[in-house]
């Protein structure tokens, strides 16, 4: 078919869908629809990961982003009861300025990409690197230190979240409020 392999066809379709859904995220006025389109975008990107033979990344992407984080997003949007009516309409001048600035950025990007030479792949890379076994070996040999240090990052985030969320029980809160 048009001299393209199935992988290339899939790549084209997935890219088209990903870009379309990403545009819909921005253009829909209803935040709930926006989030749902974002979930679809994530699925398309997960498809790309599969094409690159990175199954682990694809599954994690769906489970973590499309599953956990987007559900959280939906919850918050529903709790705050946002819908199309509550969104303020921007003034025409603001829109015009935003359009001009965005357009200028687009011109710069297009110009930069036009000037860029054909991208050369530095390292063809092992095509099996995305498999769970190989990923684990890289993670626990080469990247052992960052892997362990990331636990401190998660611990700090956890402690921080609890500290922000916990109810204050002390009574001298007023005394220290301005320091």
């Amino acid at each position, binding site marked *: 078919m048009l001299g393209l392999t199935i992988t290339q066809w899939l790549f084209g379709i997935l890219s088209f869908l990903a870009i379309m859904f990403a545009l819909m995220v921005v253009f829909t006025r209803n935040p709930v629809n926006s989030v749902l389109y974002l979930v679809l975008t994530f699925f398309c990107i997960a498809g790309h990961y599969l094409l690159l033979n990175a199954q682990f990344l694809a599954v994690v992407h769906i489970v973590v982003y499309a599953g956990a984080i987007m559900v959280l997003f939906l919850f918050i949007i529903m709790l705050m009861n946002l819908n199309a009516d509550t969104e303020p309409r921007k003034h025409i001048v603001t829109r015009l300025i935003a359009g001009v600035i965005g357009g200028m950025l687009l011109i710069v990007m297009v110009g930069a990409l036009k000037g860029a*030479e054909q991208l050369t792949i*530095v390292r063809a890379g092992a095509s099996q690197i995305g498999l769970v076994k190989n990923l684990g070996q890289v993670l626990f040999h080469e*990247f052992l230190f960052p892997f362990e240090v990331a636990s401190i990052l998660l611990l700090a985030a956890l402690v921080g979240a609890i500290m922000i969320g916990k109810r204050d029980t002390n009574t001298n809160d007023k005394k220290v409020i301005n320091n």
Partner: protein
Amino acid sequence: MKGLFIISGLGILAMLAEIFKFKKILYPLVLLGIIAAYGCNFMEWNNNMSVPMFGKMIHFDNVALAFSGVILATAFFWFILANDYFEHDHITDHFALVLFALVGALMLTSFSNMTTLFLGIEILSIPMYVLAASRKRDLASNEAGFKYLIMGSFASGFLLFGIALIYGATGTFDLMAIRSYISQANGSIPVFFYAGILMMLVAMCFKVSAAPFHFWAPDVYEGSPTVITALMSTIVKTAAFAAFMHLFLVVFGKAGESWSMVLAVIVALSLVVSNITAASQNSVKRMLAYSSISHAAFMLMAILANNRGFASVNAILYYSLAYSIGSISAFTVVYNVSKEDGNSNIEAFNGLGKRNPFVAGCMVIAMLSLAGIPVTAGFFAKYFIFTLMIGTGFKWLIILAILTSAVGVYYYFKVIIAMYFKPVREGQKMVLETSHVILLAITTLLTLALGIVPKYIIEIFG
């Protein structure tokens, strides 16, 4: 190296204190732990074991150890300043968060891989977001935390995109490999490699709050609790500069022509915007926030002089030490004044020279040092930066820096004038805790000592 482990352990210990009920002795334990970490840091100095560790992830060479030493010493002073910050609920959480932030700061002095750079920045930032918002009932504190989080995450996005582009060009995260890639691939470097460098430049400028990316700084500095502001303007700044320097002097130094002009514009903007805006501030905390932007511009100038080797490293080390000590001193005074008055407006300083001559004297030394008046450490810090800049193509920045410093003198002297020449509103004495008196005495003496004998720090490398 061991210092990093000791501080991480201390952070976990702080959390265990809640369970095993030794909250009372946690504060002395933390102080002892920091002294121990500093001792280990000192022992590793010149101990030629300095090879990259853990698969070239982290490298405690002498430069890293020197910056770690500055950070640990400042941390010790900071804990003395912040002793009654830890007197309310959830102290263990606060201790843990500050100590984890310290871990991030130490990683930023010693990273030798892009992954450790990113983790270090995040470990430093995430506790800071929470600490900025730690006065939960205070709207300004909430705003500070939220603003810091949004802006910081945005900057992290830039950083990651930059790292990804650089990885795309070089195929490695290892900093030394990237450095040799630049020097070997003459002329055949793809455009997106430079785009990656510029994106990392933007992200790092966010983190050190240089001019077009400084909008978060004044609100965050003003809204946060004063002790946390002190933490941000000393330890976070020193760590961010250590990282900035390592990236742009050591790793991307050979590609200097692609970013030095951009950086020069950022420096010029920072100098002008910060000093002119600071002159019209009424809140001393907000004024110090703008002054920290101007100090960031000075330290960036040392990075611009990227053909001077270790002289730039020495200048940045000296500057960050002088600035950290001066800031700790100034924030101790601001903290005590605002504790009494409830705000840190310039009127709160009226007549401080009569209410407590010792505190006012220390504040004068701190302000003189920050303004860069001779005999104090701040003067030599700026002087060394100027001598560095003479050898570069950006001599016009020296003139701009001197002009804007003159504006700086105006707003630092506003505080001094308020302390000595404005009438006392209420005639009461101002009483300080003993620990704060000792802290002020030490930091003031250090500021003077650094100014009188600068050569021990300024000739430390090469």
